[in-house]
């Protein structure tokens, strides 16, 4: 069976997305993390564009444009501004054992591929296998959230999780209804603003953006 070139290209981008998710998982520097996030958004925008082109669905062009605007330009710009204002631009995170994290990541990828295998059998043509990759990058972002101790990197993990979901929505299912996508984009934008407000509140109160300070609430 000859796979059309556009699908091959989307597959390549999907693989790239997964690679970026791994790179984010093991990246220690906050600045590079944000750049990787912007790159992920860029890959996402291209893949949405390719899907739009190959299935000639016009509303996906809007999605691609929206992604480019929001996730490649606006959110990274906001985050850059934020870390400059918060003076955490050069912060380096001490993380537990990167090889272990990577192995757990591989296990997650295997798990999600397994989970998605029956589904990818069903999908016809263009979407085969992409759900698995989307799920894997969602789970990797979750793992990143668990292993991070800095508020900013947790938020980047949260946003990259959203990217994985968006990839599932656009590439695997060829686009949710536009009104839903707009709603999601709005929510993400508002969430980022609220995160920003939070950073300042947290730093004002704890003098640091390290969330290890925030483990006081227990059941006794």
């Amino acid at each position: 069976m000859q796979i059309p070139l556009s699908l091959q290209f989307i597959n390549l981008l999907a693989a790239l997305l997964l690679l970026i998710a791994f790179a984010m998982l093991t990246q220690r520097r906050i600045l590079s993390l944000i750049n990787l996030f912007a790159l992920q958004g860029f890959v996402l925008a291209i893949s949405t564009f390719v899907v739009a082109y190959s299935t000639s669905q016009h509303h996906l062009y809007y999605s691609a444009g929206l992604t480019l605007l929001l996730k490649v330009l606006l959110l990274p710009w906001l985050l850059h501004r934020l870390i400059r204002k918060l003076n955490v631009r050069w912060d380096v995170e001490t993380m537990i054992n990167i090889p272990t994290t990577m192995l757990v990541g591989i296990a997650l990828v295997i798990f999600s591929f397994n989970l998605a295998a029956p589904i990818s059998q069903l999908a016809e043509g263009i979407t085969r296998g992409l759900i698995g990759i989307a799920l894997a990058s969602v789970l990797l972002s979750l793992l990143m959230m668990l292993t991070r101790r800095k508020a900013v990197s947790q938020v980047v993990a949260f946003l990259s999780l959203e990217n994985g979901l968006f990839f599932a929505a656009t590439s695997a299912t060829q686009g949710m209804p536009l009104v839903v996508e707009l709603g999601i984009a709005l929510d993400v934008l508002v969430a980022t603003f609220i995160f920003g407000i939070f950073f300042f509140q947290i730093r004002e109160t704890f003098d640091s953006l390290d969330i290890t300070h925030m483990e006081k609430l227990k059941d006794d």
Partner: protein
Amino acid sequence: MIDSQLLALLLIPLSGGLLLAVFGSRSWAAELNSLMSFGTFVASVVLTMRIIDSGPQVAFGEEFFIDQFNVFLVALTAFVAFTTSLFSRPYMRIEQHHGKLSIGMLHLYYSMYQMFTFAMLVALTTNNMGIVWVAMEAATLTTVLLVSLYRTPASLEAAWKYFILCGVGIALALFGTILLYFAAERLLGQGGTALLWTHLNQVKSGLEPTVLKLAFVFLLVGYGTKVGLVPLHSWLPDAHAEGPTPVSAVLSGLLLNVALCAVVRSKVLVDGSLGTHFAGNLMMGFGLLSVVVASLSLFRQKDIKRMFAYSSIEHMGLITFAFGMGGPVATFAGLLHMTVHSLTKSAIFFAVGHAVQKVGTQQMENIRGLMQVSPTVGWGLALGTFAILGMPPFGVFSSEFLIITTAMHEYPWATPILLVALGIAFAAIFGKIQPVVFGETTAKRLPHPPALIPVFAHLLLVLMLGLYMPPYLADWYRQAAALLG
């Protein structure tokens, strides 16, 4: 006709939110807040009458769908939101006098309160599973800044946990929604209609079972995080304990219901499609686990709001279990329990809020002898506690009785677990509240009694539902139960 009624219901809180965003720091902001909530309540009553008269309806080109099930939740939501706004007017003013809140914080509170109501009403009435997600996320976003309203380290931590955990949970729900769309797209074609619940419900037997199973797991875990189901419940006690009391009341009384409504909607689709009891079983499992874990945690609580937050987890678990069992009686009981739990729990939080405000601490060992300090607060808390523990004349008793008898009939193995868990919860809460209400104290009697009309109004309703259920209400529940199957 239905369009304009629905429009009124949604536009009143939205415009309230916008108005309060502008005028939130005026001295009459609290009154405006109550007025807007009252307007919403009136609109919901009108809509409810209409639905009871003429059955399920779609509105705005099928984007919204109202049937007996969600209109009942709409009415409940609007009512509790209204009474809470009444309660919060004096309560927040006193907080302001104590210097815990500034004008700016109140401004934020009032506008977000209306936006929160709006988000919940959209989540309840929309027909689009994607919009359900968007509205649920919006409801999280509007409340997250309310939880951290006091700006204390503890409240910030609670809000951060709430934000992150619910954010993650709701992201998983989005994945579930995407999978649902993925399954539906093949039958309904691309574009707008493939996520409409009514359309999905019509073609549910043709949906791909493997995809739907996976989708439901994600939806349950995702929205279940917001319902407060164990093991993703850890945000709930923190957010309830550290946020302002009116926020605790609406979170516990309303938001949890709205999230559960989304789970139940998905369950109807999935079990209808699979023809098995897969989704129901999962819900029963998570529900039972929540009941057990929450009731065991009750013993360790020292903070009074935290304890009642765990009690909310327990009751949401019970309701989830009831909906999971399915069938007309269990669903009926679940709906009834939803109602009485919302009313009772918000009443308890009102009373607790006043008590905490008088004493200045949330630690139960420091709150003693409320009967002597202020008999109204004392009686309010005592009656509320009796009601939530399922003492006979109150409505909670009837719904719990129905749930347990159904369980005995259909799933006998679950009955002892439920009974033991409820017994433990009873012992824990009663043992801790008894000295709080009746204990000895040296504190002075309060000069003036607090305004607790909402507390007694709620408790009166719960009492009425326990003693006598008006036939039209019973009919209404029965129709809703029939819709859910």
